[in-house]
C-alpha cells in the first residue's frame, strides 16, 4: 500500500505479535480465564478492529498488548522483541516511545490545557521546548483543534476531548495506537468523525491501530476484523486490506 511516497503495509511484517497469550484472574477460589492462548500478528500500518461482547476479553487483550498489564502466560512481542522480561521502567519507556493509547473516557489530565495534554508525552521524552510546541501546534491543527489549544478538557465537548486524546496518542510518533472503545462516549456523528480522523492518521502516518469496540459502525473503518469470544480470538475470513488512497 503506497502512501505519501512510503511503502506502508508489509505483509508478513510481525510488528505486533502475541504468542499463546493468556490471562487468568483469581476470584475467590475460582480461576477466571479472561484470555486463552491468543496468537495474533499485526503488521505495521494495519488497522484492526476487535469486536466481541462485554466480558469477552477485548480490554484485557488491549491492556496486555499495550504492556500496562502482564500476561499470566504467553508473550507480547513488539517489533519482534519480547516484553515479558522487561522491568517496570523499561515497560514505561516502551509505552512512551512506541505505544499511543486512546481511552473510552478520554482520560485527559484535567489540570492541563488541550495543548499541554498533547505535549505531555513529549515532555516525558525530554524533547526540547521549541520542538514540542511546533509538533503540538501541527498535530492540533491536523485534528482540527488549533483554535482550542488553550482550553481545559472541562471546556471541550466529548468529540473535541477525544480528538485531543488522539493527538496525545500520536504526538510521540508511536508505532502503534491502541484505542479502547474510542466512540463509546460520543454521538454517532462525532464518533464517525473521530474514526475518520483515526483512519486518516493511520493512512498518513503509517501507524498501526488496534481498536476495541462494540460499535458496529467502527468496523467500516477496519482493514481487518478480529473477534474475541470467551477469551479466544477468532479471525473470521481473510485480512481485509483497505487501500487508503481509494
Amino acid at each position, binding site marked *: 500500500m503506497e502512501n505519501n511516497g512510503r511503502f506502508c503495509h508489509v505483509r508478513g511484517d510481525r510488528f505486533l505479535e502475541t504468542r499463546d497469550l493468556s490471562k487468568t484472574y483469581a476470584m475467590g477460589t475460582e480461576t477466571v480465564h479472561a484470555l486463552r492462548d491468543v496468537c495474533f500478528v499485526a503488521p505495521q500500518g494495519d488497522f484492526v478492529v476487535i469486536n466481541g461482547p462485554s466480558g469477552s476479553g477485548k480490554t484485557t487483550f488491549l491492556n496486555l498488548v499495550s504492556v500496562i498489564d502482564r500476561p499470566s502466560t504467553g508473550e507480547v512481542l513488539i517489533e519482534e522483541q519480547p516484553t515479558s522480561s522487561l522491568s517496570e521502567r523499561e515497560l514505561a519507556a516502551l509505552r512512551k516511545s512506541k505505544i499511543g493509547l486512546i481511552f473510552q473516557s478520554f482520560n485527559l489530565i484535567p489540570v492541563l490545557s488541550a495543548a499541554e495534554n498533547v505535549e505531555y508525552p513529549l515532555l*516525558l521524552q525530554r524533547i526540547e521546548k521549541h520542538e514540542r510546541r511546533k509538533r503540538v501546534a501541527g498535530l492540533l491543527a491536523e485534528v482540527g483543534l488549533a483554535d482550542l489549544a488553550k482550553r481545559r478538557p472541562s471546556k471541550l465537548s466529548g468529540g473535541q476531548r477525544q480528538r485531543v486524546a488522539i493527538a496525545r496518542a500520536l504526538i510521540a510518533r508511536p508505532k502503534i495506537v491502541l484505542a479502547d472503545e474510542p466512540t463509546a462516549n460520543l454521538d454517532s456523528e462525532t464518533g464517525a468523525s473521530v474514526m475518520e480522523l483515526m483512519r486518516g492518521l493511520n493512512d498518513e502516518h503509517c501507524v498501526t491501530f488496534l481498536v476495541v469496540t462494540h460499535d458496529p459502525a467502527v468496523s467500516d473503518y477496519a482493514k481487518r476484523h478480529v473477534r474475541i469470544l470467551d477469551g479466544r480470538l477468532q479471525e473470521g475470513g481473510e485480512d481485509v486490506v483497505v487501500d487508503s488512497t481509494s
Partner: protein
Amino acid sequence: MWLWIPLRSLWRNRRRTLLAIAIIAFGTAISFFVLAFLDSSRDQIRASSVAEYGNLQIASPLLFDNKAEGFEYLLSPDHVNLITESLYNEASFVARTVQLEFPGLVASGNRTQVVRVRSIEPESGLIDFSEFVVAGRPLREDDVASVLIGRSLADRLSVEPGDAITVTLTTVDGAYNATPLLIAGVYGFASEQVESQLLLIPLRFGQLLFNTTGVDRVIVGLNDIRATAAARDRIAMQIAEAGLPLEARTWDELSPFYQQLSSYFDLLFGFLTLAISVLVFFIILQVLTLAFLERTREIGTLRALGTTRAEVFRLFFSESVWLALIGSLLGVAGGIILSLGFNGLGIEWMPPGTVEPSVLATRIGLSTAVLPFLVSLTATLFSSLYPALHAARLRVVDALRAE
C-alpha cells in the same frame, strides 16, 4: 511542567488545598508563637542571670562546688593580677571586678536575718548594682561602712537609706566581728531571694571586716554574651598555663535556676512541637490520601502514557512540597502577627520568686522562625511520603479501572 502540574492540581482542589495549608500554617504559627514567648522569657532570665553573675567567673572549684573546709579558696592579690593580665589577651574582654562574699547576720532593732555579705568594687561598672538602686544612692569608691540593701530585706527590717544596721560575721581567723553599717541605698532585683538575702558593701571595708587581703572570685564582663563559652575555654587554658588551681565558669553554669528553666522550656517546646507535628502529620496524611485516591485514574493515565513510578512520585510529592512551603511560610507570617499582637497587649504578670511584675512578651527573630518552619515542613513532607509512594506503586490497569 514538573513544577506547575502540582501547583495546578492544588489549585484545582482549592478547598482541600486551603484546608491543608490552614492546618500547616496554624501548627507553624502556634509553634512560632510559643517559641517566641519562651525565647523572650529565656532572654529576660538570661539578662537577670548575667546581671547577677557577670559573663563568667574565675574562682577555685572548691568555692564553686561548696567543698571548701576553710578559706583555701581565697585568691591573693598576686593571683588576681595574674588573672587580670591573662584577661587582656581575650578579645571579647570588657571589664573585670572582684568579689568577696561571706555569710553573716544582720540586725536592726530586735529583728535579725541571716544574709550573705558581698564585698564589691563600687563604681566598677560591673555587678556593682548601681543600676538597680531604687532608693538612696549606689555605693561609692570612697564609702567605708556603707551598705546597699535589698528592697525585700529593707521592708522586712523596716529600714531605709540613712538608717543603720548591724552586721555580725566570722573572720578568716575564726573571730567574731560586728560592725554598724549605714544604709546608702536600697536596690531592687528581679529575684526576691537576692533582694532578701544579699547585702553589698565596699570591697576594702569587706576585706577589713573579714580580715583578709584576698577575694573569692574574679568576675569578667564580655562585649557579647554569645562569646562567653569560647572566651571561657580560652581563659581556662591561660589559667591552667599560669599554674593556677582555678576554674572559669559561665553565667549559665553558675545559675542553676537558668539551667532548670531553660531545660523546662526546651522540654515544653519539644513536647508542643511534637504534638503539633503529629497532628499536622496525620491530618495532612488524611487529606493527601483522599486527594490522591480521587485521582487514581489520573495516575493510571499518567503511568499508561509512559510516566515512570519515580516521576509519578515526584509529581505527587511536589504537591506536598508546595503545600508545606506555602503553609509553613504563611504560618511564620501568622506567628509574627500573633506575636506582635501579643506584645501590643502588654500583659503583666508576677513570675514566682520575683518582686516586680514583668511584661509578657515574645521575641521575634530568625531563630524563632526557622525551627517551626522546618518542623512543619518536615512533618508535611513525611506525611506525603506514604500517599505519594502508594500513588507511584499503583498497578496501571487497576488505576485505570478506578471510577
